[in-house]
């Protein structure tokens, strides 16, 4: 599903260049649930952003579902993101003046799906994360766990090939974290490929495979015994 070879990325910081990713080789097959771990500054978020086409890489190749992702213009990147990828962020990133339902509808709106159809579909995904009764509520009326579940519904509604979660539990307490991870496990069980960036060991243990980054290189990549979240 994801195939990365010899990936490099540097950031220009004034006159200094910060080499963040120093040659990453990385494969993800369909249906995997991968945790990307590392301390801050290890390059894990940068890797996720490149995979998510939110950022460009300098060197190396990146294939998503056998499509070479290279030098995409903004419009094409937007279309690919919409078609292939779902995002879940640490800070939820819901649009605060739209209700839970409207937030979930948004990706479908950009897919050009008719209004009636997208309303029904969004409601179904909201129901899947157990928030059907909260559909009309605004983000500021929801708890952190609920917001993240809305964000997950929004990421899933466009039926992406890969779900990318950047510290999905970073802003949540441990109980809520487990609930969110439980949801992610369930989605994975239905066959979805998921990448989770985290620095929490117990969250990583709930995945099927752990990739550890340090100073821009992969230092460990192993399959583990998945722990149930709940």
């Amino acid at each position, binding site marked *: 599903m994801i195939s990365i070879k010899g990936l490099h990325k540097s950031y220009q910081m004034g006159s200094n260049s910060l080499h963040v990713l120093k040659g990453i080789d990385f494969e993800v097959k369909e249906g995997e649930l991968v945790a990307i771990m590392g301390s801050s500054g290890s390059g894990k978020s940068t890797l996720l952003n490149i995979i998510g086409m*939110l950022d460009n890489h300098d060197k190396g190749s990146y294939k998503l579902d056998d499509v070479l992702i290279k030098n995409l213009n*903004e419009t094409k990147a937007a279309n690919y993101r919409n078609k292939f990828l779902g995002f879940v962020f640490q*800070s939820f990133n819901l649009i605060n003046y739209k209700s839970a339902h409207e937030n979930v509808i*948004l990706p479908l709106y950009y897919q050009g799906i008719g209004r009636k159809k997208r309303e029904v579909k969004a409601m179904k995904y909201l129901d899947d994360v157990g928030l059907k009764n909260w559909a009309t509520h605004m983000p500021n009326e929801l708890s952190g766990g609920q917001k993240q579940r809305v964000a997950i519904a929004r990421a899933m509604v466009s039926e992406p090939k890969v779900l990318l979660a950047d510290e999905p539990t970073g802003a949540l307490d441990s109980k809520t974290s487990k609930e969110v991870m439980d949801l992610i496990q369930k989605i994975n069980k239905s066959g979805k490929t998921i990448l989770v960036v985290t620095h929490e060991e117990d969250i990583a243990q709930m995945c099927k495979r752990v990739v550890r980054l340090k100073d821009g290189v992969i230092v460990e990549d192993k399959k583990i015994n998945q722990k149930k979240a709940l």
Partner: protein
Amino acid sequence: MFNRDRWFEIFETIKSNKLRTFLAGFTVALGILIFIVLFGLGNGLENTFNEYFTDTKFNNIYVNGGRTSKPFAGYESNRLIELDNDDLQEISNKFDFFIEGITPRITISGEVGYKLKSNNYTIRGVGPSNQQNEMNVLMFGRYINEKDVINKEKNVVIGRLVKQDLFGDGEAVGKYINGGGRSWKVVGVYQDDGGDNEERIIYTAYTTMQKILKSTDKVGSIIISYKPSIGYDGALEFERKLKSFLKNKKKIDPSDPRGVRLRSAAKDMKENQDFSSALNYIIIFVGIGTLLAGVIGISNIMVFVIKERTKEFGIRKAVGATPSSIIWMVLQESIFITTISGYFGLFVGVVFLSSLGNTLKEDFYITDPYVDLNTALMATIMLIIFGAIAGYIPARRASKIKPIVALNDK
């Protein structure tokens, strides 16, 4: 542009951001409102101005005789020059090309009465052209005509106030009034915008007047209106030629400043027009300044709005919004708001101006303030276009921002 879904999305955004919408809309509405009101008041000022200077016709030239101050061609100094019928005839023949209307004027005053009422009035002997020269408007009957002049008829045309004095609400035309021991037939009643005195004059044929004044052929003065088409320069040229013609005819030293006097509004008119257009420039300058301030106001709000929405745009891009869809969303929203509120400002401004009417005439010399629809629409469209441009630049920048930067708030 006509995508229903997109409009729906925009209405959603507008509805959910009332303060922002209100601020942007308010700026635009206020800009247009001030522009309209300023422009309208300016026009009102100009109206008053024009009114003051259009009482008698602007293109009149008044010709009077006088005493010479230099001896010439065997004549002594201090000789009295009087205009007569022959001068009148020759002027109208020789200067036909320049002349729109010409009338002599012999003015006396005297007691005129009808039945038991009587009053002192100015009585003038004139030609038919006097109606145009004085801008008299007929209310009843007819004016002095050629036949009156030829037959020296004792017909008179009286001013509105003369009629009111002598006849009250009754019929005047066809009645006979008494003056100087003779009776005169009233053939018409006129009105004049030039004030009460202008409506207290009695006109009769100049030939009739000459006959009464012991068969003289003198005319007190001659009033000539030149054709407006000859313009300001043409008028001055005409005046110069006329003066030298008369001096030659009456044997006056060409360098004598007196003897014959020409008075015209041509010079005044020119100055008035200059002043009027200066006034116009000031109004236009202030108006454009106001609009510009409005545009700057919108730009500021747009920059602020887009800054505030950067994160939202990042989210939208993360879920699949293309840069162009974001630009269009911002533009359509801003055009929509500017159009609606611009129209609102326009409407309020026009209503305000028409409610003013002439209430400011006494104290502020503003008559009938108005703005023609084209100017108003142009202003609104300008504001919309500039608002769109003002929105486009930051919107473009926002659309180019990488979602990762917009969302990076950890």
